């Protein structure tokens, strides 16, 4: 159970990103967080695992207070929460396997991780997860050789191998095509069900949110303006969250069409960093 009370965040630039947010997420619940750009969705998620320091308020995960933890305790706390990023945020020059195993960094010592000597149980779990998302044959590929959908699945594995109690998902589909987006969302939902995980998913696509979440929270200018089930999300509510628009076509009517997860969009070619010639030239 995640419990947020009176969470406020003011950035050093003076932006008041969150104003006194209260939010409870029970175990096993998949919750979608929607709202216009700049509403503070990312800030909520980042405050929960303290990539961003909250200005005030309390956050407790299963009765452990998160705000105010010191570095060692903070690390132990962070490994209880898996995070999935919009731009995947894989370490591109590491292999798929290393990226997945990096989810275990909170559990192993520095030298172990430095020498890539992870316990066999971690490696088994990594292979199992990769197989689960259909990527086990790519374990030794470099992350920048994967397509967007594949990268996001690696990102999911990295979060899950932490064996988290909570998933924090920041716009998992923003860089993906519509079909891959659904596959990824379905995967997240299924995995949450398998592991009885609760999840907070930031998402811009209202229809996807309705399709895959049990609960929707609307955020606007740092305040919660809607909190309820997906089917209560009426045009009036959307207007309140996003502003005036024709919402009729955005809201989901039919049930989602179940389709099998199919694989392997073509891989993007690796980008090669070039050391800038000018700069080198100037230094001889």
């Amino acid at each position, binding site marked *: 159970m995640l419990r947020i009370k009176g969470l406020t965040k003011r950035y050093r630039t003076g932006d008041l990103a969150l104003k006194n947010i209260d939010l409870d997420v029970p175990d096993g619940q998949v919750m979608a967080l929607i709202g216009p750009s700049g509403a503070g969705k990312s800030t909520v998620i980042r405050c929960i*695992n303290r*990539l961003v320091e909250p200005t005030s308020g309390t956050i407790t995960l299963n009765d452990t207070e998160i705000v105010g933890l010191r570095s060692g305790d903070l690390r132990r*706390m962070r490994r209880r929460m898996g995070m999935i990023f919009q731009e995947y945020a894989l370490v591109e*020059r590491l292999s798929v396997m290393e990226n997945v195993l*990096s*989810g275990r960094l909170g559990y192993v010592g520095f030298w172990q991780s430095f020498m890539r000597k992870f316990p066999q149980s971690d490696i088994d779990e990594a292979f199992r997860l990769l197989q689960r998302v259909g990527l086990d044959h790519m374990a030794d590929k470099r992350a920048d050789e994967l397509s967007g959908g594949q990268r996001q699945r690696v990102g999911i594995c990295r979060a899950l191998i932490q064996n988290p109690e909570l998933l924090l998902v920041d716009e998992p589909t923003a860089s993906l095509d519509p079909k891959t987006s659904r596959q990824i969302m379905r995967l997240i939902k299924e995995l949450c069900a398998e592991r009885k995980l609760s999840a907070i998913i930031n998402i811009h696509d209202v229809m996807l949110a309705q399709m895959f979440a049990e609960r929707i929270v609307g955020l606007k200018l740092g305040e919660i303006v809607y909190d309820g089930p997906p089917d209560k999300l009426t045009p009036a509510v959307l207007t309140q969250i996003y502003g005036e628009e024709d919402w009729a076509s955005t809201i989901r009517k039919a049930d989602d069409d179940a389709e099998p997860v199919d694989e392997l969009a073509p891989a993007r070619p690796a980008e090669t960093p070039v050391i800038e010639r000018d700069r080198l030239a100037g230094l001889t």
Partner: protein
Amino acid sequence: MMSKTLASPKRSWQRRDRKTQLTVWAGYLIGTAIFVFCFQKISETTIWAFVWDAPAQAADLGSRMVPPAWSYIHQLWRPIWDTINIATMGTLISIVLAVPIAYCAARNTTPSVTFLRPVALFIIVASRSINSLIWALMLVTIVGPGVFAGIIAIGLRSIGFVAKLLYEAIEEIDESQVEAVRATGASAAQTTAYGIVPQVMPAFAGISVFRWDINIRESTVLGLVGAGGIGLELNAAITQLYWTQVSLMLLVIIATVILSEWVSAKVRHAII
């Protein structure tokens, strides 16, 4: 830059308007004046008779240099070996020392912005401003002539170069990748090893090889001040006017430099 003047009914076009044009001319004028002034200053201290005589001198010197004393090559293997060693070991030393300095100098990794970062930046500038020959000059008076002084001189000069390029590479990394590693609960050291090191590794390897290539060229002259390598022989041959030996050594230097440039280009290509 381009603008149309609508003054006359017949539209005229000028690349720059009048004011910009004047500024540009003024710029040229000042530039020329500075150049002429500087040249004047140099010419005051120049004995022009020598300068006019230079082509004849050059022709004379050239004729004395051919044919190169090919047999002398047998005495050059050792100096060539030393030269390469000075470059390689100097580069290795500089790499080892440059890494922590770059770490402290990069805004996103430095442990202390107010104290360590300025210190690291100063070390970088100081190392870069002083040519390896000057470093060698100092070191020869301190540790005595020989290869050792050369190695240290090359090392000290290269620290700034490697550290500067490395810290710029560190500042340009993708922070979201680092953040993702941090979010797993990794410690600071683990975040560095998994989030930062893989991102800067190719740049680091490229920089090191590139500097090694430059150092080969630099180490050919360290001998002139007594710090070992082929420069020592070159200096001796020039002072004793053995011009055929000098020309051979110049050829050897060209060959070595071109070869090292080729190796470094190949290695950098393989890395990236």
